[in-house]
């Protein structure tokens, strides 16, 4: 409850700070809205003719794309602005103030920023998922599995991104690695079956993009059993625990820049 209250205050404050610069805020929002609409148009062109992609009907493949868009919206709105701050705050030593607060520093560094420009992308992704799920004929249980799978996917994407961002403690200017992850996640917009075997293995076992988009869609569509849903959730929680342990370990090496 305390953390939810904190999250609400963080996001209100972050929004207020961005809205201090009215023109920049409005332009950024407009640009994001146009880009999101553009993406939607591309999807329409690509998927409206109907096709078969690695054994997936277009409605099913669209669900995978919707999940990838959802992750992308979270990267734009929450993950990127927050995790970039780790690198910046290590650079100028202001991470000190976060470490001195009696709250989880990982929570603080993962949630303090909120970029409203992620909202148009979030709306488009939810629209895509809603439309694709409907077109693919998901029943109530399917929607529930999809919701759980999507939540696990978001958790997993966050945990992997946080793991990468944590290396800033040593390498300082390493934030591009999170953008790289953002791009890799975007490769998950198509079902992994559409890719060649080596890339498929990479997307499953090296950077677990498979668990972020294709697997939740497969679970929702009933292509995989409910046991797989538990596996996806377990993988997410496992990587989240790993990210927490790694953050604590990394802080041992925090040198607190400048005096």
């Amino acid at each position, binding site marked *: 409850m305390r953390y939810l209250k904190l999250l609400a205050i963080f996001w209100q404050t972050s929004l*207020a700070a961005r809205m201090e*610069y009215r023109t920049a805020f409005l332009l950024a929002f407009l640009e994001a809205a146009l880009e999101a609409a553009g993406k939607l148009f591309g999807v329409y062109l690509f998927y409206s003719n109907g096709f078969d992609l690695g054994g997936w009907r277009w409605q099913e493949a669209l669900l995978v794309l919707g999940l990838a868009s959802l992750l992308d919206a979270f990267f734009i709105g929450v993950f990127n602005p927050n995790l970039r701050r780790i690198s910046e705050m290590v650079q100028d030593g202001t991470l000190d103030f976060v470490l*001195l607060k*009696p709250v989880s520093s990982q929570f603080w560094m993962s949630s303090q920023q909120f970029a409203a420009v992620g909202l148009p992308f979030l709306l488009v992704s939810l629209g895509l998922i809603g439309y694709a799920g409907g077109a693919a004929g998901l029943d109530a249980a399917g929607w529930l599995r999809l919701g759980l799978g999507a939540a696990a996917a978001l958790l997993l994407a966050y945990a992997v991104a946080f793991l990468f961002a944590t290396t800033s403690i040593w390498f300082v200017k390493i934030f591009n690695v999170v953008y790289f992850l953002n791009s890799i996640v975007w490769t998950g917009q198509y079902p992994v079956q559409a890719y060649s075997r080596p890339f498929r293995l990479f997307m499953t076992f090296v950077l677990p993009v498979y668990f972020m988009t294709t697997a939740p869609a497969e679970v929702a569509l009933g292509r995989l059993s409910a046991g797989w849903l538990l596996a996806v959730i377990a993988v997410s929680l496992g990587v989240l625990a790993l990210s927490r342990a790694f953050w604590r370990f990394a802080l041992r090496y925090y040198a607190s820049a400048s005096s």
Partner: protein
Amino acid sequence: MEAPAVLAEELSKVFLVAAKEPGLMGTLRHFVRRRYRRIKAVNNVSFEITPGEIVGFLGPNGAGKTTTLKMLTGLIYPTSGELEVLGHVPYRRPAAFLKQITLVMGNKQQLIWDLPVLDSLRINAAVYEIEPAEARRRTREFAELLEIEDILTQPVRKLSLGQRMKAELLASLFHLPRLLFLDEPTLGLDVNAQIAVRRFLRDYRERYGATLLLTSHYMADIEALAGRVLVIHRGSLLYDGDLEGLVERFAPYREVRLQLERPLAAAELAGYGEVEEAGGLRARLLVERRRLTAVVAELLARFAVRDLSVTEPPLEEVIARVFSEGRV
């Protein structure tokens, strides 16, 4: 006996620092194969601070003051040694410990740059679980003491340096910490702002019985606040005691200035102390403190003295001498 607020034993911190030669070749070598040097920032430092004390931490740039403060607050891990602050091991940073301390840094700020001070206070109130009514009371109390009631709704970026530092203090002490670590809290402030900050810290300590450890390059801060000083140089503790004791031990002289009726040669004054200036109607000599009274009496009796004054060596000079010699 009351447990110490801070207990440091044989505390050391070693940093690995990359060394780079200048020029293109140096840059390439540095890129391919990095060489590191071990820098001992803090070297076997031991001290104790009792609750309620105000301790000044003195040392030139790079002496190890800030590194020590960062170990005491748990921001960095000591390489070796024992450390206990308010009964906690700082680097574990338990919430119970963090709620009782604060670190104010003159060169860093926690306030949100683009928003008014009140927005930052709102976050701190939520973080420290301070009830809204109590948060309002503390805001009023501290803002009044710091004389910044009028600026709390202005974006931080619009504040002057002095106003910003006062607002930083307000945010840093909002949770009523028992132990304050202050690293150059008056850095860059004008004299009025420095005085206001000192007054506020003294008031805070009186009201809440807090313990303070502060570093400052302004000796006036230390003189005004600290009853005890720790002098650190090249990572080692040189002195731990009161300020008068430091002056006594390191500058056991007074300067005696004379205005004379007739010129005096240096040789005539040589027996009284170290002659700094003589030959005209003015003379200056350094006299050992223990002989001061006798020497002054004798000078007045023997020579036609129009005026005589005795001055303390400035504290800055004493400290500079400690640092240049590296010993006390």
